């Protein structure tokens, strides 16, 4: 599951952001100061200081009332310029989507994937519709205002240009919010209606508690990874059946609040820790083909020498997994082979609040493959609408970022150029970020663009060193400069993957607040602040009469 979030490095991310901002703004100040000195001589320094002072005054005298007026104007303008036409496209898509997404036979396989299909479709449609409309609106607003000169009647009032940039962004965000709000509410109803009744239980928001995974080898020694069976190289590690090999999860801060009331086969309720697993089997021989591979949960408390082995279970379907309840009251075996009743929370949770659960494969000669996200504690589920609207919040934040970038670009280039600029910027952010990272990290052999251009026609493979001569030295320098430029690009490209929360919703998980939603919010704020300032600077330093 690729939606398992990595911990967000808040401090280092903030420091990197600060460094980039300081470098960009220092460079801008230095360049403008120098150009002022060159064009105005000694008087340039005074003029520069006066201008800088005026800018600061303008920024700090921003009026809420004026911003409201300008934002409302932007909102009205967008609505009266038929921005709501997007609803027609939306309605058409929805009217006919059912033809392509639903299965008239209502097969079991379809029912299993119905939630994923519908949720993915909806979230993609909402993302693209909103982004296209908002990008167009945001990029043409100010250039049109300048072209029609209606901005003349605004800037000759006490409206600060900072307020104009800020309010344009706020106004378009308002439009986008209305569009997205109406479309997402409609979508939620549509999903509930379209998904087959048999699959509606999948419309949920699992709230997982993820653990840290480690392994024991077949001799019971600690190891960094399991066995590589040659099936999946990076993602899953495998443990061998009927040996001391284990996959061990350690869950932090386990409390009684994590227990869920479950029902057994007889209809009796009991308190249990609900675990959900998606374990993959790798058979080295056919074995028993009437059933799947078997495994056991073993709950350990090394501090008290307690070990509880749950009943032997069969792994579930690779994609839907299985859910099991570890009862609160268990029978434990001590090292002395004595049995005693233990409480899951009071006896098996360590003093530091951690709970250790090992998975063992019980079929000899068979292997079970596991990754960190293949086992988690499943807290009581939240309503599907909660995770759905968190994903909508992700789209909304992406929309805010798009609008911010669009309005900023439109302060220094005309509408069509602004659209192309931001479209390219976002496309590179979505598709090129990883590419640039690999290029810069030497993960890919063969050097930079020029070195590759040399190697390809000379049939030189990427492990052979380049011949040492002035020509190849020049190629390396040019590549070094280009890589430096790529590094700069990498620093300013947003990590837009934070905004895409479709994986969570489509797979029935609650969107992670701290490691996905918070980074998305911070990325948006991180771009919003400098973009508004850059937009203000550009609008302030340009003659609005200029064609």
């Amino acid at each position: 599951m690729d939606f398992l979030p990595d911990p967000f490095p808040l401090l280092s991310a903030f420091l990197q952001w600060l460094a980039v901002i300081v470098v960009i703004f220092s460079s801008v100040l230095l360049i403008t100061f120098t150009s002022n000195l060159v064009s105005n001589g000694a008087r340039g320094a005074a003029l520069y200081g006066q201008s800088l002072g005026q800018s600061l005054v303008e920024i700090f005298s921003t009026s809420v009332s004026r911003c409201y007026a300008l934002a409302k104007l932007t909102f009205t303008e967008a609505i009266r310029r038929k921005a709501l036409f997007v609803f027609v496209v939306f309605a058409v898509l929805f009217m006919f989507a059912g033809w392509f997404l639903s299965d008239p036979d209502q097969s079991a396989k379809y029912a299993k994937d119905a939630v994923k299909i519908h949720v993915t479709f909806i979230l993609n449609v909402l993302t693209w519709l909103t982004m296209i409309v908002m990008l167009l609106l945001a990029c043409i607003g100010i250039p049109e205002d300048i072209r029609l000169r209606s901005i003349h009647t605004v800037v000759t009032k006490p409206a600060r240009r900072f307020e104009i940039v800020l309010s344009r962004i706020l106004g378009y965000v308002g439009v986008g919010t209305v569009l997205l709000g109406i479309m997402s509410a409609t979508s939620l109803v549509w999903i509930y209606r379209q998904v087959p009744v048999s699959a509606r239980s999948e419309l949920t928001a699992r709230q997982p508690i993820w653990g840290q995974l480690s392994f024991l080898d077949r001799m019971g020694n600690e190891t960094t990874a399991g066995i590589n069976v040659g099936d999946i190289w990076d993602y899953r590690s495998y443990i061998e059946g009927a040996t001391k090999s284990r996959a061990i999860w350690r869950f932090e801060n386990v409390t009684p609040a994590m227990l869920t009331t479950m029902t057994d086969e007889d209809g009796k309720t009991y308190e249990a820790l609900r675990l959900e697993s998606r374990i993959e089997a790798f058979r080295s021989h056919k074995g028993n083909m009437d059933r799947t591979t078997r495994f056991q949960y073993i709950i350990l408390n090394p501090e008290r020498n307690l070990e509880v082995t749950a009943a032997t279970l069969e792994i579930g379907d690779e994609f839907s997994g299985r859910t099991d309840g570890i009862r609160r009251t268990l029978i434990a075996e001590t090292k002395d082979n004595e049995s005693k009743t233990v409480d899951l929370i009071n006896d098996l949770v360590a003093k530091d609040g951690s709970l250790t659960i090992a998975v063992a494969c019980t079929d000899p000669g068979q292997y079970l493959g596991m990754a960190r996200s293949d086992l988690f504690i499943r807290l009581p589920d939240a309503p599907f609408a909660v995770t759905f609207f968190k994903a909508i919040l992700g789209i909304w934040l992406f929309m805010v970022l798009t609008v911010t970038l669009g309005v900023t670009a439109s302060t220094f280039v005309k509408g069509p150029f602004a659209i192309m600029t931001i479209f390219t910027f976002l496309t590179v952010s979505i598709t090129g970020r990883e590419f640039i990272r690999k290029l810069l990290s030497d993960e890919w052999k063969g050097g930079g663009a020029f070195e590759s251009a040399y190697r390809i026609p000379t049939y030189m493979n990427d492990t052979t060193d380049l011949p040492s001569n002035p020509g190849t030295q020049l190629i390396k320098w040019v590549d070094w400069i280009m890589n430096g430029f790529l590094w700069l690009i990498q620093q300013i490209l947003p990590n837009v993957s934070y905004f895409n929360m479709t994986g969570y919703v489509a797979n029935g998980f609650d969107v992670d607040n701290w490691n996905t939603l918070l980074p998305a919010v911070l990325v948006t704020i991180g771009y919003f602040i400098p973009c508004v300032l850059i937009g203000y600077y550009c609008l302030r330093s340009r003659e609005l009469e200029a064609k």
Partner: protein
Amino acid sequence: MSTDVASPTAAKDSSSLSSGNEPVISIRNLSKDYRDFWGRPKVKALKSLTMEVRKGEVFGLLGPNGSGKTTTMKLLLGLLFPTEGEISILGKPATDVSKNERIGYLPEESYLYRFLNAEETLDFYGRLFRLPADVRKQRTNELLELVKVSHARKRQLKEYSKGMTRRIGLAQALINDPELILLDEPTSGLDPLGNRDMKDLILKLKEQGKTIVMCSHLLADVQDVCDRIAILYGGELKVMGRVDELVKEQDATQIRSSKLSEAAASEVLDVLKKHGVTDVQIDQPTSSLEDLFLRTVQESRERPGRRISV
């Protein structure tokens, strides 16, 4: 009092009207070059303009197309940046936005938001001055009455005629009850009635102590309302002074009376000839076409259906 046809850098102000009054606008050696993509000067729109506008006067900027009138206006408002020179407007630099609190500006074309209606337009501009809601409402009603478009207050501006848009343009320029009003071609697009209303309004604003700067190439309009004018040509200041002084023919005399009989006219001619006056013309004065038009409309309103006898 003399009138100077000035050199570009040394136009003299022949006005005594406002001498002693504080300058509301002060321009020193103002130049503006329009540049090409590479930053090379393409057109010199304004060359070393120096002038002052004083409190309470109606000042006209005249000149043919491309003479630099609108450029001057836009430099005053900070829409353009000067290549050289200094501007002080209400005691502040042109780039200081806070000066706009006391300024009203009517652009050459009424560059308004055509998707708003008249009421929304004035409310929007009122908000930019942070006027309280009740004041905005009151000013909106007053101004719509003043510019005579209150009957169309709910219609979007894109449905307005040019003249009506112009009127709303004027209303937005007055929303903050400004001290200084800059009017770029204020009568452009107005019918004769609107033209007269505009001129009456300018005079009324002057009576209220407002300072007005207008640029126009409709000379009759300027003559009707302006105290002082400056004539620009090719970006240079050519003439500046009081209108009545500038247009006065120094070597001619005009005597005006009620209609003379032929005998009386002949006697007057004889007297003038006796004093050596040779170039004498006695005929009946004509009113302006504008006056005739306004009188006709007025009578048509008062007595509808009747043909007007002139």
